[in-house]
């Protein structure tokens, strides 16, 4: 289900004294099964762009084609598009409203007019995917969940609609390292096992470096870089210029190189970095895994 964006502009509060343009001539093509990191500092327009991808915003200037369907076309079934392109918002409290976890996850499939058995099946599947144990959590009160669990319940609520594309907007913000890792593992599994197209919106470069294959960088409403993750991340100075912290691994490897250690450029994850450092130090036998 490819998504194409052509010459998209967006102005908030158009026609009022508070009008502010936040997207400028955006062109973007997303293919099936891609794992994209959409990064940029706050106010870059990431969330606004993301909301065009599942027809929460309808273009007034420019075009958005989802699987060939123009979202501005009156004949396009927008509800159907929103089921196919799932969107998980940063704050799970904006989504969760039922009493129990199970009921809330069932909300989407119920809207899709699934049979009760089908709904039950989808809830079970979604809970399994995000790693919420059904026995323990199905009847659990939403308000008794921790921050990380709420995020996972919110993701499950979207997954239960069986989307083919998943947009995750800042879902690691405000989580402790463990909750963060749990969520990222879920996302990785979804992409790998379900072959879902995933668009991961974040300003944490560490999250993005660990996961994605392609990175799109935005700044002040424009796409300023787009390419394979390794290449984009290697342009460290450019990222620093717009106020993004490059991943710690990249930072460390760069400094090691500056100090004269023979480590290669373009290392993105901790395991790779570890084995390269061990190699450079010429000391075999150090534990070769880290987690």
């Amino acid at each position, binding site marked *: 289900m490819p998504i194409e964006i052509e010459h998209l502009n967006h102005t*908030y*509060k*158009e*026609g*009022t*004294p*508070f009008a502010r343009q936040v997207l400028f001539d955006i062109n973007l093509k997303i293919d099936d099964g891609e794992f994209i990191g959409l990064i940029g500092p706050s106010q870059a327009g990431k969330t606004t762009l993301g*909301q065009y991808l*599942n027809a*929460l*915003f309808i273009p007034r200037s420019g075009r958005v084609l989802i699987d060939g369907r123009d979202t501005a076309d009156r004949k396009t079934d*927008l*509800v159907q598009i*929103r*089921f196919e392109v*799932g*969107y998980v*918002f940063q*704050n799970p*409290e*904006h*989504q*969760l*409203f039922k009493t129990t976890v199970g009921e809330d996850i069932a*909300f*989407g499939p119920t*809207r*899709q007019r699934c049979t009760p058995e089908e709904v039950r099946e989808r809830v079970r599947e979604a809970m399994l995917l995000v790693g919420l144990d059904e026995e323990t959590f199905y009847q659990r009160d939403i308000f008794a969940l921790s921050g990380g669990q709420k995020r996972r319940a919110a993701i499950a*609520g*979207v997954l239960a*609609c069986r989307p083919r594309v998943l947009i995750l907007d800042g879902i690691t913000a405000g989580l402790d390292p463990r909750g963060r890792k749990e969520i990222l593992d879920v996302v990785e599994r979804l992409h790998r096992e379900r072959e879902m197209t995933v668009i991961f919106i974040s300003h944490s470069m560490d999250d993005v470096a660990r996961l994605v294959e392609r990175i799109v960088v935005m700044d002040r409403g424009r796409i300023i870089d787009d390419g394979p993750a390794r290449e984009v991340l290697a342009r460290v100075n450019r990222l620093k210029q717009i106020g993004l912290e490059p991943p710690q691994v990249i930072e460390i490897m760069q400094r090691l190189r500056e100090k004269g250690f023979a480590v290669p450029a373009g290392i993105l994850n901790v395991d790779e970095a570890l084995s390269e450092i061990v190699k450079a130090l010429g000391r075999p036998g150090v534990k070769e895994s880290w987690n």
Partner: protein
Amino acid sequence: MELTRDLTLGVYLPGKTALHCLDPRTKIAGASGLILLLILTNNYAAYASFAAFTLVLILAAKIPLRFALKGLRPMLPFLAIMWVFQFLLQKPPGSKVIFSYWIFSATDAGLHIGTLMSIRVLLLFLVITILTLTTSTVELTDGAEALLRPLQKIGVPAQELALTMVIALRFVPTLAEEAEKIIKAQTARGVDFNRGNFIRRTFKLFPVLLPLFINAFKRADELITAMESRCYTGGAGRTKMKSLRMGKSDYFAWGIFAAFTVVQVFLMLKIGRPY
């Protein structure tokens, strides 16, 4: 989908016009006076003259007219319902019945009452909008507090009342923004808020109102903590960084208000109600 785009109530539009620069006490008292006049107004001519005066205020404050009028749009459905009720249920003695059925009876007086009331509500909304568009939150609190202070002697908690009012106004845009986010999150799960009949649409509000209320309570709780951690203990003994002072333009504004009141009262008495 942007709820906040059409929101004009509780929004401050910074500017340097004469209206912006008036003492907040003048503006609050003036707005209250205008509202009192509105409630007393009983005929179309007086409302027309009031609308003209409101228009002058909007132009003087350099508020884009379209922006000010847009804020009225969300109220139209409510007004329509109210209008129908007034039309069908009001039956003052001596009125002419146009038709009647069961408990409903449409009268000429009902028609007038409904129409006058709708105009009144729209103008009332405009007056309050002009006040908040030209007065910042800080000025509003200071003004309201100063006006209520004489009542403190008889046990009215002026400072607390002013603060409550300001917090309420301050959070209108915040809550609208939040509602927008919630609506989006639920739309992403397949709720189509623009489809279905009246009853269906009402039921669709549950997934929005529940998170909105819960978050509002949370926000209130956080606000209390934030205030207490900065040693807020109520109004006693607090001083102001900017003290309020009435100037020439304020006396001029009072003059205009007095003249306008005379005109309105004259119109009300001279013409009288149309039914």
